[in-house]
């Protein structure tokens, strides 16, 4: 009696016998599909996958039908389909990541981060030249976009959550509509509104302006969601202490939402870092490092990739893959940063 311990039971957990049964079912299905491929004219990987899927469904259906009846058998079909849905959705992601790693590796070297393409063509051997100009240009243009969209985006979010004026509903609607503006239209707009009538030449500033149009809705919507999560106790406490609305928001609400707002910024950066079409239209694309956003064309990472791709030789395409590798690494780091920040926020 003394060493009696109660172990928590987990009745929903599969017993070893059930797990074995699942494995047997999959094996049977694989065997059936193998035999069908062997004896019929259907050949190839596609046939294997399709037949494996169909025979898995049939085997599971039969097992459940004879064991428990028609309802669980139907349920097993649904399970097969939703699992297949997940696999189909995820396979391209892994294929993309694998491709970038495989093809981008060849073009990666330290020259990339210390040289520009001033004295090299895209067709030169891979060790020469680099994408310093593109990194600098992308950094400047995304920075300009951030400078413009951060105040506008956060003010929009504050208007929607704190002030709630008569324009709240239409503005909410318009911000959502704005997040669907095609990137090429943003480029055309800057072209028609600024480049043609005023500056008449492409420069980094124009690229930044075009990117900010795409960035504002992302920042506004994410900040709005973040500000909505701030408990209204904090606002009431601020007002009860005699603070005006301005002081309550600027000294209490916004600081409380700080890490969420940083997440909004990071998501905005990740959104525009890879935008290609507007930059092709408005920023030109120099081959030398150009730190001045007000004068002469400016290179950027997406433009560098685009140029290598359209040039079309083996070397230039390898350069493009290396560029994509760098671009995606940046986006990946931004994404992880956003996740970590919002994750730590949730724990508090």
């Amino acid at each position, binding site marked *: 009696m003394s060493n009696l311990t109660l172990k928590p039971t987990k009745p929903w957990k599969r017993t070893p016998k059930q797990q074995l049964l699942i494995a047997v079912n999959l094996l049977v299905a694989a065997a059936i599909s193998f035999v069908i491929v062997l004896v019929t004219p259907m050949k190839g990987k596609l046939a294997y996958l399709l037949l494996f899927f169909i025979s898995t469904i049939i085997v599971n259906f039969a097992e459940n039908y004879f064991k428990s009846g028609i309802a*669980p058998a139907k*349920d097993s*079909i*649904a*399970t097969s389909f*939703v699992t297949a*849905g*997940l696999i*189909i*959705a995820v396979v*391209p*992601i892994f*294929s*993309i990541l694998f491709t970038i790693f495989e*093809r981008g590796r060849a073009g990666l070297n330290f020259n990339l981060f210390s040289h520009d393409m001033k004295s090299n063509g895209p067709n030169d051997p891979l060790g020469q030249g680099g994408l310093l100009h593109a990194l600098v240009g992308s950094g400047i243009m995304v920075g300009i976009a951030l400078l413009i969209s951060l105040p*506008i985006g956060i*003010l*929009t979010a*504050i*208007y929607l959550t704190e*002030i709630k*004026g008569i*324009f709240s509903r239409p*503005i909410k*609607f318009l*911000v959502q*509509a*704005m997040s*669907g*503006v*095609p*990137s*090429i*239209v943003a480029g*055309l*707009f800057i*072209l*028609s509104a600024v480049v043609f009538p005023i500056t008449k030449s492409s420069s980094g500033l124009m690229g930044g302006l075009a990117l900010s*149009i795409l960035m504002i809705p992302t920042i506004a919507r994410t900040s709005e969601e973040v500000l909505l999560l701030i408990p209204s106790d904090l606002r009431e406490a601020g007002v009860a202490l005699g603070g*005006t*609305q*301005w002081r309550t928001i600027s000294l209490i609400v916004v600081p409380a939402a700080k890490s969420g707002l940083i997440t909004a910024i990071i*998501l905005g950066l*990740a959104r525009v*870092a*890879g*935008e*290609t*079409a507007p930059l*092709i*239209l408005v920023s030109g694309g120099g081959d030398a490092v150009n730190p001045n956003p007000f004068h002469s064309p400016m290179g950027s990472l*997406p433009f560098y*990739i*685009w140029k290598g*791709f359209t040039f079309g030789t083996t070397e230039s395409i390898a350069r493009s*893959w290396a560029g*994509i590798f760098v671009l*995606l690494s940046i*986006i990946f780091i931004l*994404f992880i940063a956003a996740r970590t920040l919002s994750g730590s926020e949730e724990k508090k």
Partner: protein
Amino acid sequence: MSGTNSAISPTSTPEKREITTKPRFSDKVFRGVATVGGLSSLVILGLILIFLGYQGFQVLRSEGFGFITGSNWQVMQDNAGNTDLAASSFGIAAMLVGTLLCAALAVSIAVPISVLCALYLTFYAPQFLKKIMVAIIDLMAAFPSILFGMWGFFVLMPHVEYWAKLIHKYFGWIPLFKMEVPVFTRSPFVAGVVLAIMIIPIITSVSREIFSQTPLDRVQAAYALGATRWSMIRAVVIPYGKSGVVGGAMLGLGRAMGETVAVYTVLNLVYQINWHVLIGAGGNVASMILLKFGEAGPTETRALMAAGLVLFLLTLLVNSIANTIVSRTGGKGR
């Protein structure tokens, strides 16, 4: 109270503060600034409309409805070498049809996959797998379009061409898949598959959010009545989330119609209305703008602006409908 105060210094009695709900000056300024910031989205959208309309006006007036219904794009020059607007013709019908065709194809491929994926993530996945998969799918939504373009061109296109051949072989009798000349490269079908892969993360995350808002009491009631997981989904989740999924699909449609670079790399632009998805000749407004922009003269650039205006209005319409549907379904959530 006032008696003791006046005993110390009769002059320093604090005046009675007026109790008011009128905002202070600082609040008025603050509200003004925030309202201006909030209205900026209206201003920007309005400016886009005005400037693209202003630049494209000349071409739109000379072409009239022919700009949308014609499918001829020809720039004529008079003797002095200037563009002759009356003799030139600008029509984007083929491009519009191509845009709609590719986008519709993308949505019809992506929606079933995304909905199944969202169902799996909401009701089937174990907790650890769910977390990882949601993060991966969100990451995919942040992939730049040029990445999809290059991956689509080098990796996906050979596979999709093979699928297209299979479809043609077995389903060639369906009018949509018919083709006289067997040219499978760079067809709308390829573009549709690439776009489908791009919009799967968007539709999945919208559907997942809607499904996870399904009232828990109804879910538990269904289970308590002895429903299997599938019959619960069919009886509770699908009726509840149906219109939300439609909204998510339309968001995906809007994204697919506005996509430029990814389509440009995998689609062969031909100025001819083509409904047959497997033939290697398609159209796309955004890609055409990018293609023509490089060598366009002033008048042709104006025509491209007009094309951009049409694209802008089209995506605006689709997105507005989508957002209305999603927000109505979501209720208080988003």
